[in-house]
């Protein structure tokens, strides 16, 4: 019986791939132009450089708590690359890669991790929702957003991001159920990086895959190699097409790994091994894509060197820009609580501004 069930579950256990561990194709390649392929690779390199740089900035005390995504670049890029501007994403704290791919300027991300709410403010026209720290809640927001598109007769798609740990929250269930019942154009994207902070997946759930949870909602569920950007992109293409054409939601599970700590407050040595990390690094998504491009004759060593340099310059410029912004305007903490300041906030704002003026005076007198 167990074997029969396993056989039947197979579609939810099989892992979709395009690239082998060494970058040679093992599955159908998505229909992309050489420029697109290069752009996808460029994004991944940029994200790696960005991520490593922000980690360093945090260690130097120039950022607050930071959640790195290195290792998960294929998921970040593959999930967002095909979206159109009208589409929406609802990210977690580890999805600033996808947020940038979907149009959020890097300087916003840096300001966010510096501790400025302005960082959460996507430019007008960029449909990138602020990072949701409360786990899995954003899935319901994504479903509601997609549902609104449907009600309004528009064809925009919404992607809700969540981690493996986040699938344990009630919100995961409620979001998938609403998405299923109302057949909304939402994609629920689980980056299964095997840990929720320190808790390994087998302590989080006993089911054999996350994708199989789609069975509970009678919606499509797919599993994909999250270290293979072309595979991620392929399953997203299908899911986006399905959503846009009225076919409803999809649950996607990507098998991936974060190389770094959960956040800069975390010490992963307490709960996982160096060997495990190295096994995953051997299937690095960037390296695989590079080999694929080189093998296809679309990429040279020289171009690669230039790219990494370009990325470092980009990131350096964004960091400089972010740091030049200085401290946020104190008024900002009052001005956006409501559309208009009610009397008590007006009073409190005036009091704070007076206090700051006075204290600045004091400092001056002392100086």
């Amino acid at each position: 019986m167990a074997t029969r069930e396993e056989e039947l579950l197979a579609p939810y256990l099989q892992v979709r791939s395009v690239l082998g561990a060494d970058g040679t194709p093992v599955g159908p390649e998505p229909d992309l132009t050489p420029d697109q392929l290069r752009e996808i690779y460029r994004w991944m390199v940029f994200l790696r450089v960005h991520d490593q740089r922000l980690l360093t900035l945090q260690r130097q005390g120039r950022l607050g708590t930071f959640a790195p995504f290195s290792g998960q670049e294929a998921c970040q890029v593959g999930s967002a690359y095909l979206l159109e501007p009208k589409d929406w994403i609802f990210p977690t704290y580890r999805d600033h890669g996808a947020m940038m791919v979907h149009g959020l300027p890097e300087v916003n991300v840096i300001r966010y991790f510096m501790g400025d709410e302005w960082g959460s403010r996507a430019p007008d026209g960029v449909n990138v929702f602020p990072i949701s720290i409360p786990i899995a809640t954003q899935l319901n927001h994504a479903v509601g957003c997609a549902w609104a598109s449907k009600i309004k007769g528009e064809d925009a798609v919404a992607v809700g991001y969540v981690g493996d740990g986040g699938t344990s929250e009630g919100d995961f269930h409620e979001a998938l159920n609403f998405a299923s019942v109302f057949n909304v154009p939402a994609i629920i994207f689980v980056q299964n990086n095997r840990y929720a902070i320190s808790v390994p997946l087998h302590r989080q759930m006993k089911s054999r895959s996350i994708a199989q949870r789609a069975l509970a909602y009678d919606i499509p569920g797919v599993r994909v190699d999250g270290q293979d950007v072309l595979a991620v992109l392929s399953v997203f293409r299908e899911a986006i097409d399905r959503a846009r054409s009225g076919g409803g939601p999809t649950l996607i599970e990507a098998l991936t790994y974060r190389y770094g700590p959960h956040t800069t407050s975390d010490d992963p040595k307490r709960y996982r091994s160096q060997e495990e990390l190295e096994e995953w690094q051997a299937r690095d998504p960037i390296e695989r894509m590079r080999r694929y491009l080189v093998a296809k004759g679309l990429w040279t060593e020289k171009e690669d060197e230039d790219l990494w340099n370009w990325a470092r310059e980009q990131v350096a410029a964004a960091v400089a820009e972010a740091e030049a912004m200085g401290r946020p305007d104190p008024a900002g903490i009052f001005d956006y609580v409501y559309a208009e300041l009610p009397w008590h906030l007006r009073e409190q704002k005036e009091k704070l501004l007076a206090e700051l003026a006075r204290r600045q005076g004091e400092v001056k007198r002392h100086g």
Partner: protein
Amino acid sequence: MARMTMVQAINDALRVAMRRDPRVVVMGEDVGVNGGVFRATDGLYKEFGPDRVIDTPLAEAGIIGTAIGMAVNGLRPVAEIQFDGFLAPAHEHVVNHLARIRWRSRGRFTAPVVIRIPSFGGIRALEHHSESIEAWYMNNPGLKIVVPSTAYDAKGLLLAAIEDPDPVLFLEPKRLYRAFREEVPEDYYTVPIGKARVAREGRDVSLFTYGAMVHVALEAAEKAAQEGIDVEVIDLRSLMPLDVEAIVASVQKTGRVVVLNEAPRTAGAAAEIIALINDKALLYLEAPVVRVTGFDVPMPYLLNEDLYLPDAERVLEAIREVRSY
């Protein structure tokens, strides 16, 4: 004008809003085919169809969470939570998201969701159907909190809430749903959020209250009048923001204050009103403020509900106490 009960006025407000603004959708458990367990949404499903009057699955976090997503993407959801005690499963979405989306995104995204909730006690219902939940949210910036006490206000405040750019918790005193009929205009009008109403003018004692307790207060005020005490009853209508001007003006006039609400006593809305008087008008007080509230116990099952809920007698006691101090 038509004579309407409060629940009819609410129903009318929803209909008027939906006719006027295609972005308005109504959603919740049993709000569609059934017209809501109190019939607040009666007839809307028929008129506006299943895309705008949505029977949702039984999942409050899902309701409020998806309403947030809808509002961010341009709709104006009016979500019904079936009873006060059942907002709790959606608490995370209310405090951690709904109240903060404008703030967090520095105005780029907003979530103008109205959450309508049949609230408070007095209908002898089962457990969790008679709760006062305003204190969960008054200390939580970003929400407006409105409680009507008349049919006219219920319609006008609800229409104001729906057009408000900010999220509004709209707590409907279910005990008043069918308690009276009043003249209510059939067209569109709003009652401003944040303004209290003088429900009865008086010189001797100020009585601040809201919701169903306004009527208890008025009854007590009538009795007090027979004893020669002239009570001013202020219907706060909005708990966030509070109408500080109305509160201070009345305290300045009378110098004696009763605060009345039906939530448990400790750290409820009544405490904030006392603290506000301390901040703004303490020197006008001629006696300590007297709080008349529920007890610090869970709302009792129905055989003991009357013990819990303040009644006119209890309020009159307080009026006498503060008057004779």
